């Protein structure tokens, strides 16, 4: 049942490919503003690249959170799903997975392209990709809580970042530190492992908190 939901949402996302492309475009655009702002010095850009890439990716992913429950909430299918007997936590986890596949994954995959223009050493691409993949999964999970909490709220598009961005700071720190550790020939392992642990920790937290908020919204 949950898998069917994932398939349905993925095919919906495929029909509206523009949405996914839009968040990639936003990511590329916001990252490319930095060379204009701080100057084109390759050495400086290379040093700042992990942080800039991470922040730009974070913004792109947070923007995609509004779509997690909102369309289904508006056309009433969320209520149908809640009544269908599918446990709400499975619904939430399925939505988080779809959000990651359509939001975090494409942005993470596009990141080496931006890294190239920032003259980040090519040896760092794998760790950048790994940190963004893990980090975006964390963000999709905690983002689902934020999206569920603001369901039915006015100005939800502004509220979600206000709620989710402060919570995302640990992920951001770990993600950037993983890349920077590798850049000075240390191992990124502890940071990536911590992100994995955080991700696992967020699964039960999201499965507990987001359904509680959804129940309020569907009341």
């Amino acid at each position, binding site marked *: 049942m949950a898998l069917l939901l994932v398939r349905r949402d993925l095919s919906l996302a495929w029909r509206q490919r523009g949405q996914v492309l839009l968040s990639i475009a936003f990511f590329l655009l916001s990252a490319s503003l930095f060379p204009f702002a701080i100057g084109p010095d390759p050495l400086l850009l290379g040093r700042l690249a992990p942080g800039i890439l991470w922040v730009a990716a974070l913004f792109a992913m947070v923007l995609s959170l509004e779509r997690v429950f909102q369309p289904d909430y508006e056309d009433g299918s969320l209520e149908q799903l809640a009544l269908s007997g599918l446990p709400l936590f499975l619904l939430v986890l399925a939505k988080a997975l779809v959000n990651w596949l359509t939001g975090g994954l494409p942005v993470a995959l596009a990141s080496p392209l931006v890294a190239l223009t920032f003259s980040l050493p090519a040896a760092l691409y794998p760790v950048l990709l790994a940190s963004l993949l893990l980090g975006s999964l964390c963000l999709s999970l905690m983002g689902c809580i934020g999206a569920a*909490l603001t369901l039915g709220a006015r100005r939800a598009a502004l509220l979600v970042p206000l709620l989710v961005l402060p919570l995302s700071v640990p992920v951001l720190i770990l993600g950037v530190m993983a890349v920077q550790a590798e850049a000075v020939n240390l191992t990124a392992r502890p940071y990536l492992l911590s992100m994995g642990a955080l991700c696992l920790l967020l699964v039960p937290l999201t499965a507990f908190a987001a359904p509680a908020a959804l129940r309020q919204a569907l009341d």
Partner: protein
Amino acid sequence: MHVLANPGKFLRIFGPLLPWLSLIALALIAVGLYAGLFLAPPDYQQGETVRIMYVHVPAAWMALFVYATVAAASAAGLIWHHSLAFVIAQAAVPIGATFTFLALVTGSFWGKPMWGAWWVWDGRLTSVLLLFFLYLGLMALPEAFDKRERGQRMTAILSVIGVVLLPIVKFSVDWWATLHQPASVLRFDGPTIHESQIWPLFVMAGGFAFYCFAVLLVRVKQQILETRLRRLQLASADA
């Protein structure tokens, strides 16, 4: 506790306490400030600037204490459907935000002479800043819903989730030891600051706590009366 779920009873029991709470708060803050500014000795390294501590530290304690109160009241509201719990939680949020802001500002006044900077991205400072943003989120969220009840419940869920931030703030000085000094009062092997400094600190903390109770009472009372007024207006509009 369930007796207090009746707003009328709550006001009858706690209403008369308000002048006393305010008086105790005023007295404690006055004594604490006098002791902190005049009686307590200057620090042998920091000199007179150490006196900022008597506002900074109690404010930071209150920032955490009020958050714990908000989260506890929210949890009580979610679990037992205690009708006043959400009102209390919502009334406490701006108080907590104010104390957090006070802690950040006084900390910055203290940081300038001691560290040479208004702000550094130290673990404690950053985590308290996040706490401040969380408070702002808790203030913005209930406003965004048309249904009052729903906004209250959503905010309650958020404040319960936000509890994870409290241990991070408390232990940030141990996990990322950069500039902010580690805990010197609430630690397992006893305080590491001198008695002459610790008693004004506790007096100030007590004063802030009573101030918080007094303001909380005023705000809750106002909420209850507003609800009552709205109900009366609706009733008279119907008739």
